[in-house]
């Protein structure tokens, strides 16, 4: 009975998150394996950087692009960009060092740096502290942090009412007339 309990308490050996990497030789002691994993970690990055860059295409701060960008994945720009950006179903982030002079159309736009141009975001726009946005905005939701600079107009475009599934309609006792939800604008302090 005592032995069984001890067996249950033995921690599982750590497996690295990268599936493509060659598996490390089986560690005799799980504590040692953990140490190994810690030493592999790269230079520490800021919270925002990690958040924004994970799983997105990145344009580094030493890069300048002039032209049109169509993106089918999330895009993080920390360099200079002039032209137009279209990432209709994705998130477009301007990093703290990013300077974008472009008209932008995306699902979600997050500004940490400078953006000059009109912005259309089907979901939301976030203007973070120390960010500068000059241009007209069309979006469903907007978040402006204290300390952000914004010059331009804001049009809240109400999301189209989503059609309910026929099954759900049938189960409902009395179908209420669908009305567009009030423009949801998040408050952030």
């Amino acid at each position, binding site marked *: 009975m005592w032995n069984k309990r001890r067996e249950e308490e033995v921690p599982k050996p750590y497996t690295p998150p990268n599936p493509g990497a060659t598996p490390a030789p089986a560690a005799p002691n799980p504590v040692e394996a953990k140490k190994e994993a810690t030493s592999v970690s790269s230079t520490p990055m800021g919270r925002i950087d990690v958040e924004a860059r994970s799983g997105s295409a990145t344009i580094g701060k030493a890069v300048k692009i002039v032209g049109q960008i169509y993106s089918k994945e999330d895009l993080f720009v920390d360099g200079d960009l002039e032209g137009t950006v279209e990432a209709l179903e994705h998130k477009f982030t301007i990093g703290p060092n990013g300077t974008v002079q472009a008209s932008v159309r995306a699902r979600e736009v997050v500004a940490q740096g400078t953006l000059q141009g009109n912005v259309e975001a089907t979901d939301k726009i976030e203007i973070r502290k120390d960010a500068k946005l000059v241009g007209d905005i069309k979006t469903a939701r907007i978040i402006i942090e204290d300390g*952000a600079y914004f010059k331009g107009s804001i049009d809240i475009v109400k999301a189209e009412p989503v059609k309910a599934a026929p099954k759900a309609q049938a189960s409902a006792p009395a179908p209420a007339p669908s009305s567009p939800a009030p*423009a949801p604008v998040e408050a952030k302090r």
Partner: protein
Amino acid sequence: MLLAERLRSILRGPRGAPAADEAASKIVDRSPRARFVSRQGTTIETVTRSSRGLEEFFNHIRGQSGLTVLDVGGATQQNVSFITNLGHRLYSEDFLGILNESFGPDSAVDQSNPGRIEYFLRQALDYPEAHFDGVLIWDVLEYLAPALLTAVVERFHKIVRPNSYMLAFFHSDQKTEAVPYYTFRIQQMNLLEVAQQGSRHPTQLFNNRSLEKLFGPFESVKFFLTRERLREVIIKV
């Protein structure tokens, strides 16, 4: 003792409703002060207070939607949310920021220089004629010298649609010292959260007479005096 109790019960009314002065004191009590430390490490004090001027402003645009409103106090989440939730389009300008950029902090450069005035107007109020249905001016006009002030007021007259309203605040203290300048955040139709950002020297002092003269070309001017010795002014274009 008994008489006082009886008098109190009469004042409370038949159903124990609060007396008029009690109700009034409750309104007064709705000005809680709060302090928080900003990310820059400075302590910001905020006060929430009722505003007749703001109430009057929203009374005029209540029941309408799709109006175009200009807020020259810079973008704040609360104001953006409040105005866009009413179904209006909001334009945001950081008037004091542009003033600093054009004339230096605390107006180091002469505010009567015509070239500078033109530059300022181009930066802050470059809009077509009769473009806005309402303007939230807040307290920014206090920091403009006479020549710049006249040019700005003329520009407002041009870019705001006739029969629309503007809301402006002026300190009524007859002092030439620096007065605090604020960020005004709309909480409700008649409730403002006021956050002091610093202090500036007002370039001139205003009383009712000088304000009437300043807004002479406008349709009408209405004043509300607050407990903080602030004149809230509703200007009809």
